[in-house]
């Protein structure tokens, strides 16, 4: 698609838009984009304005920062206050509010917190700072978990004794199952996450069509990918069928990435995990296997964590389940803004509220 001229892109977009309008005519539809990168791409490319009003796009629990619960933040913040600890983290996590602070505030007050671009960079910090216990905040879905697992394997091979992982890695399919099992999130189709699917392949989503009769399309991130995936969902809905389709076949093989999956299962085992807004979901998390427990921060570095409190009136939980659009939250754009976020959905660059705010849903009059 990158090789298409601007004129060809515009033409293709107009075709999909026209067809979507025809297929959706006379019905009201809710499609959920599961991945935060999709959310951003949808807003960034102005797709919401191209779709007819009766086709509503809602965001699901696909932003890893957003679904990380307060308790995890509180634990990371408590660790950051220890003088012999260095926290290494992707930048997104800095601003997310815990119960009473953020990592950014702790950093401003002297905590040793370093932004890294990969888990391997965290390993380098550990190698260069033997007097520090270096904790990597491992947050993310199936896409990023293999790199954290690889870092643990490398730390093991190189006998690093001061590298630890605070794992909040999560698995997407169990969250979708929990969402549907709750019976509250009415969704007519799923735009499934391209990056995650590149690792896990298609099979883990089979239950969507088989058990819930809901169409799903694995989608890429270019604007045309998303428009095409919406079109593919609407074709299924129009034909009253439910299948799992792969719009992003140029990147996502049916079987995923077996070597990444192998590393994942070598280092991690599935465990229950708490998701912000969705609560505890069985088998939706990844905890470090016994063999590599020397790298588990929680098991090796004692810590007392403050009692977790949720921000009053914060509705991130509902937003993450597709039950509330950000503009219907009383805090949105008022008390809760990107420069003063109340909830995680306003913090992360891939958060639904941040995207609504940043890209001005309804604020730019054409």
């Amino acid at each position, binding site marked *: 698609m990158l090789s298409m001229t601007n004129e060809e892109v515009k033409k293709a977009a107009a075709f999909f838009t026209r067809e979507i309008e025809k297929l959706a005519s006379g019905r009201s539809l809710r499609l959920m984009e599961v991945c935060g990168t999709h959310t951003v791409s949808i807003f960034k490319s*102005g797709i919401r304005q191209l779709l007819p009003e009766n086709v509503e796009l809602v965001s699901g629990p696909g932003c890893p920062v957003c679904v990380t619960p307060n308790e995890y933040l509180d634990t990371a913040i408590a660790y950051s206050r220890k003088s012999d600890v260095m926290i290494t983290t992707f*930048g*997104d996590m800095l601003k997310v509010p815990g119960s009473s602070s953020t990592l950014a505030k702790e950093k401003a007050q002297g905590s040793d917190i370093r932004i890294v671009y990969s888990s391997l960079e965290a390993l380098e910090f550990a190698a260069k700072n033997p007097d520090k216990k270096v904790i990597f905040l491992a947050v993310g879905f199936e896409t990023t978990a293999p790199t954290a697992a690889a870092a643990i394997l490398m730390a093991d091979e190189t006998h690093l004794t001061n590298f630890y992982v605070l794992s909040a890695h999560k698995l997407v399919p169990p969250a979708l199952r929990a969402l549907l099992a709750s019976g509250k999130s009415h969704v007519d189709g799923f735009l499934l996450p391209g990056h995650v699917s590149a690792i896990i392949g298609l099979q883990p989503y089979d239950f969507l069509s088989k058990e819930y009769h809901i169409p799903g399309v694995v989608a890429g991130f270019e604007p045309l990918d998303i428009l095409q995936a919406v079109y593919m969902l609407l074709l299924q809905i129009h034909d009253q069928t439910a299948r799992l389709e792969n719009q992003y076949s140029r990147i996502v093989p049916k079987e995923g990435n077996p070597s990444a999956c192998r590393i994942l299962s070598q280092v991690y085992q599935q465990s229950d995990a708490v998701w912000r807004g969705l609560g505890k979901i069985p088998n939706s998390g990844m905890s470090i296997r016994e063999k590599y427990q020397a790298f588990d921060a929680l098991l090796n570095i004692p810590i007392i964590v403050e009692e977790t409190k949720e921000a009053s009136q914060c509705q991130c939980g509902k937003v993450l389940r597709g039950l509330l659009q950000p503009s219907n939250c009383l805090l949105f754009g008022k008390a809760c803004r990107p420069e003063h976020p109340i909830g995680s959905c306003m913090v992360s660059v891939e958060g639904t509220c941040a995207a609504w705010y940043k890209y001005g849903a309804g604020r730019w009059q054409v």
Partner: protein
Amino acid sequence: MSNECVQLAHGSGGKLSHDLIKDVMWPAFANEILGEMNDGAQLHISGCRLAFSTDSYVVKPLFFPGGDIGKLAVCGTVNDVAMNGALPLYLSAGFVLEEGFPIADLQRIVASMQQAAKEAGVHIVTGDTKVVEKGAVDGIYINTAGIGKIMDGIHISGKNALPGQNIILSGYLGEHSLAVMGERHGLQFPQSVRSDCAPLNGLVEAMLTAVPKVAVLRDPTRGGLATTLNEIALQSGVGIMLEETHIPISSAVQAACDILGFDPLYLANEGKMVVFVEPESTNQVLDIMQQHVYGSEARVIGTVVKEPRGQVGLRTRIGGVRLLDMLVGDQLPRIC
């Protein structure tokens, strides 16, 4: 704000920087000249119109593809003076050095400053050097201030944007930011990702000599093109509509941004400028810019519109329109 601490994001050049200046600096320093909110102060002294600007440079690493902290300290201030429609004449240079900083590195940096000053045709005529204990600063910080004479008949201000004007961008975006970031974090970007750090006063002089009617000049440094245009939209009380397909972004920068989850429209530049000009003068300005080494890729990227005031919109590649807001905090690499 009085209960809060300064965070890194307060220095990003985006919304938090604005809040800090508005809430802390402005109440103490408020005056008419500062209130113009341009890249430098425009002064009237005994019938002479001068532009005066200052900036501090704390970049890490000190040396990066396409430049170093010294080149940056000269070009940055030269450009801020030039963006007032002035010919930069003299600079000051203040150094804060960390105990233990290698003299060889200092020599390399000042040689680079001299080279950049020579290219810009300015003289470094006064300065200051302080050395502080190890750990008090990170190697070296440089402050430069610059003064220049505003060209006769030229009236440039961020308040001059009017509906109907065209917006020209002088070249490709985001190169400086990514070059520095690549060096800082050891990221392997293509060799073409080099800082665009350059003195723009020659280009400004050529343009304004031929077309004195230029309304606004601004270099999109911290906060990038999006934040710069938001500032101008607010200053002038107008709207701005950009065409995504007209904005020059190299494939190397776009690819790096895709990987990191950055938006090139918010990345800092050190050798680019935006020019607001009336439609009848647009082609002439473009011609002049395109003949200059620092404007060879110049093109019209959008227009000034009446409504909605104070906002910037972007017509996207697929034909949608979305808001292009100011940067909030620093852009941070995404997780997913």
